[in-house]
């Protein structure tokens, strides 16, 4: 099931499947490791303000608006 990265809570994980919001944003996200196929773990999502994620052994901070453009696949029941 695909859902926006911004909906994931702290500690939840998913696999990036789609990047929306145009080529420019997608190119920046891909350079930081957020490309289709990448496993991403949300480290901190306080629901307001930017969230931090761990992807490809690096930490990336991104605004809620940008995180909403990253669609990830999560497995139900998996922490």
């Amino acid at each position, binding site marked *: 099931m695909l859902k926006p990265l911004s909906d994931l809570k702290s500690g939840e994980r998913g696999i990036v499947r*789609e*990047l929306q919001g145009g*080529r*420019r*944003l*997608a*190119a*920046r*996200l*891909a*350079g*930081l*490791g957020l*490309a*289709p*196929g*990448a496993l991403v773990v949300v*480290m*901190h999502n*306080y629901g*307001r*303000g*930017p969230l*931090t994620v761990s*992807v*490809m*052994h*690096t*930490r*990336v*901070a*991104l*605004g809620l*608006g*940008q995180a909403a453009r990253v669609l990830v696949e999560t497995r139900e029941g998996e922490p």
Partner: protein
Amino acid sequence: MTGQPPRPVTIALAGQPNVGKSTVFNRLTGLNQHVGNWPGKTVEQRTGEMVHQGTAIRLVDLPGTYGLTANSEEERIARDYILRERPDVVVAIVNAAALERNLYLIAELLVLPSPVVIGLNMMDVAASHGVHVEPEVLEAALKVPVVPLIASRNQGLLPLVDAALRLAANPGAFAPARPEIRPPHRPILAAITARLAGKLPPPYPTEWAALKLLEGDTEIASLVRETAPEAWEGIHPVLLQHEDAYLDIAGGRYEWIARMVRAAVARPRAGVITVTDHIDKVATHPLLGLALLLGVLATVFWLTYTAASPLVNLLGKTISGSVAGAARSALSAAPAWLSAFVADGLIGGAGMVLSFLPILVFFFAFMGVLEDVGYMARMAYVMDRFMHRLGLHGKSSLPLFLGFGCNIPAVLGTRIIDDRRARLLTLLLAPLVPCTARLAVVTFLAPAFFGELATLVMVGLVALNLLVLVVAGVALNRLAFKGAKTAFIMEMPLYHAPNLRTIGLFVWNNVAAFLKKASTVIVVVSAGVWVLSHWPGHGMDHSVLAGLGRMLMPVGAWMGLDDWRFIVALLTSFVAKENTIATLGVLFSAGEGGAGLAGRVAAALSPLAALAFLVVQMLFVPCVATVAVTRQEAGWKWALAGVVLLLSLSLGVGTITYQAFSRL
């Protein structure tokens, strides 16, 4: 070839941000480096020279970039340099602890014409995370020389240069593995390549251009449209059909990387919780992080002023006492006006300004430490919540913090903000951050004006500046920028121990700019103020400067400034903020140098007018150097807008302060 000195080997240094690339560059070149701008660009260019075993080498530090798209100026500069200048070798620095992400840039570099050597840096950090990387295995998979490094401890740098020179001497031997794109798009790429063959002007390699077209690269698209219109006609419809290919290409690069590193990297099964993760639990927390940030900033200011104040006082006394005295006795045989010009004009003016140097050195040293250990990115993160409301970016907070040191690096620092509107707004607001020069003026005058209340007044003035910054930011964002929102995407680097060399260079670059200003602009203004305040004779009250000050007295009257000398002091602060003191020093000294200056100045104004004067001084138009760099970064229009904005804010807030308090 004999008789001619051999051409230096050119090595371009590439790498993603936060991989220790600057450490490598600084270690290799030492002080043999030049900082300038890329031709026609506002991006900093660093080049340097070194000699290795008799070979002269020219090192070019490319901007740190995550990839090589046409989407940011840095990435365009890096790829254009490699394509057009064809460096003999590209040395790419990667972080061994985050190899997969770092190899994304390598995947882009390997399809460009220059041979590549990989410097596998931060091997110690990787080991501490339980990550084991085998350089030989990676080298065998990529068919690219890989040299392990710990640049922070100076390990592996000479072997890295050796490997680069070996490759430069024999570039034909370079046959790397090249990333392939996913099978569904291969025939499409082949079709585009075939149509482009022989149609492109040098230096663009056909296959690279075809790949970039499929990725949606607007720069290459317009190049093909202009130079090969007939090929474009065939290619354009294909591109439209495969508009989403860029996602596949990016995903494909990481799949290729995963295959390349599979045998070379061993990681612990369960991810290690690193020191960085522990610290970030606090440092990136919405409340704790903010508390930490405020604590850190308060400590920086407290340490700066505690450490610097004795030195500033000592320097001030030495300059106004011994140095001015020595000048007077050396010139005792010269005409009296010359002795007064040197002792009161030059030493009393520009010399006093020099005494602020310790504040600058300490402030930039502390900021350099925060930057180098990796805390700055967390500052940006924590501040993003607030910056957002001003239509700004978390990253905007970094140049604004630098502004506390000096507004010039703040204006230049706005380059890190990739959104143009957020950058312009930051440029406009940056001069509202009180720089050390303005704080030094207040530190000097407030105790004389307000005695024991001085600290309270100083804190209040800084708070007022920041309040004005926030209000002006919100208003400008609503009115002029239509409430635009900006994207926030930023890597949070690992924390690491500070490197003294890096911090030293950071302090030196900033202090050198200040010394240059003090030795040129401020000297000229001090001299000019002295001359204008003594010409055409018959005492200072009848001078040209007094006339100009009196002409502006009606404006000064709004805020209780009934002494022309303060109005002149404000006017000269446009040239440099420190001139407020320099000018008052000249105008109030009357042959006594700088000694006892503060007392004489304080006696000339009522406390209320003094407060208004300090408010105006803190918010007054940016100094001419700041205006000049703003023009260089954003053009005349924005530079002038900044002057008008601050002029109206300073006069407005100064008047309100005076009028409101006098009615209490």
